[in-house]
């Protein structure tokens, strides 16, 4: 059932705190949202944080997005 299958990837409220568009962007860039450092209150992650993570050389993931 869904609930079971989802438990590995779905952050429970209060665990990974990322706005929906940042979560989608992370998937698009092939980044695990859990690795992204949020700059907002309580470590809230926004799209800018995901972009910053993507372009940070130290944590370059498998699919590095070339900065345009």
């Amino acid at each position, binding site marked *: 059932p869904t609930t079971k299958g989802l438990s590995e990837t779905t952050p429970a*409220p209060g665990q990974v705190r990322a706005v929906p568009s940042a979560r989608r962007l992370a998937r698009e860039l092939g980044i695990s949202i859990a690795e992204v450092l949020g700059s907002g209150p309580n470590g809230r992650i926004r799209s800018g944080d995901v972009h910053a993570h993507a372009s940070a050389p130290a944590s370059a993931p498998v699919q590095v997005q070339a900065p345009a």
Partner: protein
Amino acid sequence: MTKAMDFDVLIIGAGPGGYHAAIRGAQLGLKVACVEKEYLGGVCLNVGCIPTKALLHAGDELAASKHAAEFGLTFSGTQLDIGKLNKWKDGIVTKLTSGVGGLFKANKVTHLVGEAVFVDAHSIKVGDKTYTASNFIVATGSEPAKLPGLDVDQVSIVDSTGALVIPDPVPARMLCVGGGVIGFEFSHIYNNMGSKVKIIEFLPDVIPGADRGAVAAFRKAMEKQGIEVQTQTKANKAEKQPDGTLKVELEDVKTGEKRSEIYDRVLVSVGRRPRSAGLNLEGLGIAVERGFITVNSKMQTNVPHIYAIGDVAGNPMLAHKAMKEGLVAAEVIAGEPAEMDPVAIPGVVYTSPELAWVGLTEEEALAKGYKIKTGQFPFAASGRAMTLQSTDGFVKMITEEGTDLVLGVHIVGPHASDMLGEASLGLEMAATASDIALTIHAHPTLGESVLEAAEAVHKQAIHIVNR
């Protein structure tokens, strides 16, 4: 392989899950077909969400015409034409289901009529035709669960589908077996239309999954309106009497004590069962657990190009969950980075007052080990609620101590479902109670009570004394 296939994606079932998947798939350029054996729109549009809400509105208007005396508006000769009511409700259903047909056409979704069965992992049979596809989405939904001893004849013993046809006259005495969302919605409808309604529930409390504090207030409001609620009670059997009434044997599940009561109509609303049988899933080796098809967060089954969504893919069995999963499956198939990763899925009981919630209940938050703070604001202190003559209930907000993060919002009150938008967005955006408290809410609105509940978390609500 894709070249030889009839469709990029073939969807089985045109309920909310299936038709959302179909339209989104088409929007993303996929060649889509959707097989439906009974009706476009599925349970939701035909015999679920929509017709119940139409009847609830009608019942609410009837009730409102009585409460109007409070401000000097009185009516004589009140008459409810049940035939017309049923027709009006059916008209809305027809409009929406033919709307789905129109959207299929506009989006170039091929609509296949009939019952689909898998032949192999890349083809299905509909009647005597076979269709192939690169991907499949199983969206076959669910059906009412049965209760031994209470055989549904859709006349005197009905399930939710039978209950949608209001009989003329309305039953004088109605028994609702099962105190879940559907049971309460129908009880509210029939109670407003003049039936004497009793709800029995096997468990110690009603509306499982909702916050207990909110449920207590909700239940009190329903009882105030004349609906009787008996928990820890079950119905063993119902016998048709010579005069057409039903003799129902009820049992107290704690004491085992039995008694018989007479009813004119019995509604069996004891849950729903996923519709995964008859598709030949076993033949494809697709994993099914207690009737639900097992899926991952991309809605894939263990056969990755076969997806499952909606009621057949697990709880909660709600239309908006089915819709979201439908979009996710279609997007994944189209190569988009979609995933079913909601922070929370809202729930609503569309009675008056409504019960609406999203996120963790107080019980769940504590069970997960959160240290919590709560804030509660009663509609009795809301000017807007007073002008709407609807002051029962409250907004309850649950936050994490320290971080101030909103974990859950639970509302009993007027238009509660309308206020879920803010609560849901807040949860998804990782909003804190302060974010909500610092947002200007228009005056006088019901939404101010959400703000006040957030302020109450910090003991700074304005219109109540904070303790």
